[in-house]
């Protein structure tokens, strides 16, 4: 019955006109961003961070989360209509979605995508409702050593998925942690590495790092990229409803996809892309029509869409209950919470129940909005894709500048953003991915805090991390993960460049 009262609290928080409006704005913007190739959900969430400072924390998180899962929806639209994945995790949807569209069945593909996504998302939400409180309760038993180990595991997981190899990923994590040490040390009150700039006393702002690394440097990379317009072939939209046999064929794949997605979503570092690839590969093997996958089978659209939307929801489980972001976007969500003075971790659910349950209920509303939005607005998205996308980049640059400036009216922050933009660009040139850097930057200060506390409790004995079974097990998993990446990447289906 506790669950019911919690959900009632969630409804009371989420179902206000104010929060519903921001939820709608979030999913709408998210779909928009997802449809447009070139700007990912990460940049979108980063750009909205400064706006979210002006909102109450629940509303801020509801909106940012809406952008994030809305982009999953939008990504599949570009995949099906244009064979261009709007988001990386939608690339699997191209395999069967685009052939369906070429057969004149784009309407059916989009409709089944909407239904499968909705189903997957709801499945993920249910998993989250059932699992999060239990996990949080378990995590309360953690001491500083275990926390340190969980964070190390999260950081390792974030770096091994980096396409340029685990070694470079770990280096970027280290760089992020080091950047996080700039400013006043909370233990001693001493300032560190401010190199004579008083503006750095409070540390480098998360918004500045995120906007520079993912906004400015992305624009630098893609502004002059292939600027072909995405003029589509005439696509018949007359039919939306799948046939009766297609409905029946989709039930199994939808459930399997959702289950796989929910599982991978909770693991740090894997996320939606891996979930949709694994779901598709598995379905291809077990389906009686598996040999026809890739020619426009409805199952090939249903599975990845159910999987990546389920994963998008369950990714919030470790983020909110342990304070460990599984992906870069989740790291930004975590940062948004911390800016509002809320420490994510096992106490979040009991200390801020309205935030946690409100967010969960907002997922239900948001996914409902998406379901209703998706079909009637497809015409709009298609027209939008015909606009040459060089209109986009100057707009993004200005939004970044205004966003950063609006936080503190600080010109210094804008110069810092530019510096991080150039840094991100140079790192990309030399095949260093900036994503693990951001996760290291967010987790770094907490990692240091728990490390110092654990060492204090053990009286300076570093063996504490191996003697406590919990932390030893977690560090062991991290080590196995690192060693496993020594396997050549061509054997991993999801690591191949798309």
């Amino acid at each position, binding site marked *: 019955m506790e669950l019911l009262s919690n959900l009632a609290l969630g409804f009371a928080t989420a179902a206000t006109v104010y929060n519903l409006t921001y939820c709608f704005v979030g999913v709408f913007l998210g779909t928009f961003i997802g449809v447009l190739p070139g700007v990912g959900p990460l940049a979108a969430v980063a750009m909205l961070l400064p*706006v979210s400072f*002006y909102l109450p924390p629940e509303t801020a998180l509801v909106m940012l989360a809406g952008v994030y899962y809305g982009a999953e929806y939008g990504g599949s639209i570009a995949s099906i209509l244009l064979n261009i994945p709007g988001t990386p995790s939608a690339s699997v949807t191209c395999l069967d979605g685009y052939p369906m569209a070429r057969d004149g069945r784009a309407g059916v593909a989009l409709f089944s995508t909407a239904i499968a996504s909705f189903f997957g998302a709801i499945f993920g939400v249910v998993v989250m409702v059932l699992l999060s409180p239990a996990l949080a309760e378990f995590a309360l038993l953690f001491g500083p050593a275990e926390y340190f180990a969980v964070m190390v595991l999260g950081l390792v997981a974030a770096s091994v998925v980096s396409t340029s190899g685990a*070694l470079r990923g*770990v*280096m970027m994590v*280290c*760089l992020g*942690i*080091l950047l996080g*040490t700039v400013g006043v*040390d909370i233990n*001693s009150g*001493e300032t*560190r*590495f401010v190199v004579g700039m008083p503006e750095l006393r409070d540390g480098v702002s998360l918004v500045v790092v995120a906007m520079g690394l993912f906004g*400015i440097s992305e*624009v*630098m*990379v893609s*502004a*002059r990229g292939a*600027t072909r317009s995405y003029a589509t072939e005439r696509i018949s939209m007359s039919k939306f409803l799948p046939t009766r046999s297609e409905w029946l064929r989709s039930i199994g794949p939808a459930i399997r996809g959702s289950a796989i997605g929910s599982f991978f979503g909770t693991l740090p570092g894997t996320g939606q892309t891996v979930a949709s690839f694994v779901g598709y590969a598995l379905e291809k093997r077990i389906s009686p029509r598996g040999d026809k996958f890739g020619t426009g089978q409805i199952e090939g659209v249903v599975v990845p869409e159910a999987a990546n939307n389920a994963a998008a929801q369950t990714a919030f489980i470790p983020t909110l209950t342990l304070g460990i972001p599984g992906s870069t976007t989740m790291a930004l969500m975590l940062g948004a919470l911390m800016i509002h003075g809320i420490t994510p971790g096992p106490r979040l659910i009991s200390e801020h129940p309205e935030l946690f349950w409100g967010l969960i209920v907002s997922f239900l509303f948001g996914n409902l909005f998406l379901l209703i939005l998706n079909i009637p607005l497809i015409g709009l998205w298609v027209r939008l894709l015909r606009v*040459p996308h*060089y*209109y986009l*980049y*100057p*707009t993004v*640059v*200005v*939004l*970044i*500048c*205004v966003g950063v*400036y*609006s936080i503190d*009216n600080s*010109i210094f922050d*804008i*110069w810092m953003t530019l510096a991080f*933009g*150039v840094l991100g*660009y*140079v*790192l*990309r*040139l*030399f*095949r*260093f991915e900036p994503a693990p850097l951001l996760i290291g930057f967010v987790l*770094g200060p907490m990692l*240091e805090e728990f*490390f*110092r506390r654990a*060492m*204090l409790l053990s*009286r*300076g*004995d*570093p063996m504490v991390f191996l003697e406590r079974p919990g932390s030893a097990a977690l560090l062991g998993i991290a080590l196995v993960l690192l060693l496993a990446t020594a396997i050549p990447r061509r054997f991993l289906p999801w690591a191949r460049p798309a």
Partner: protein
Amino acid sequence: MHRDRLISQVGPALMLLVGLAFVVGSITTLELGSARRMGPGAFPAIVGGLLSVLALVTLIRNVRQPMGWDQPDPISVLAVAGGVIAFAFLTPLLGVLPAIVVSVLTTSSAVPQFRWPGRIALAVCVSVAVWLVFVKGLGIPLTTIRGL
């Protein structure tokens, strides 16, 4: 080929420099403390050390199997950076909206197909949209046009 190999080492070499800088910075300017009570310098020194070691490993591995690198696109970098610089300089002088117009015009020069009428239209639209959303909608206190 020789030059390519040398350039591909720039990335790891930069990482090595950053790592060492943090190690040296922590040791010379901050208290290291003891293992039990660590000072402010201990953690950055450890992480900086780890980064340096990893960068060194990468440098050595890179000699045998050099990792590729991408050609920079100076025009794109200059146009985008120019847009940001224009905003940073003009906002305190003229206010946010004129700064946005110049910023859009500067950034859009990256794409040659982007003709002047389109660029001007975009600049006007973006500044009106920012005014509507940020100033009117969200009520963020920005100096829209200085002296107005």
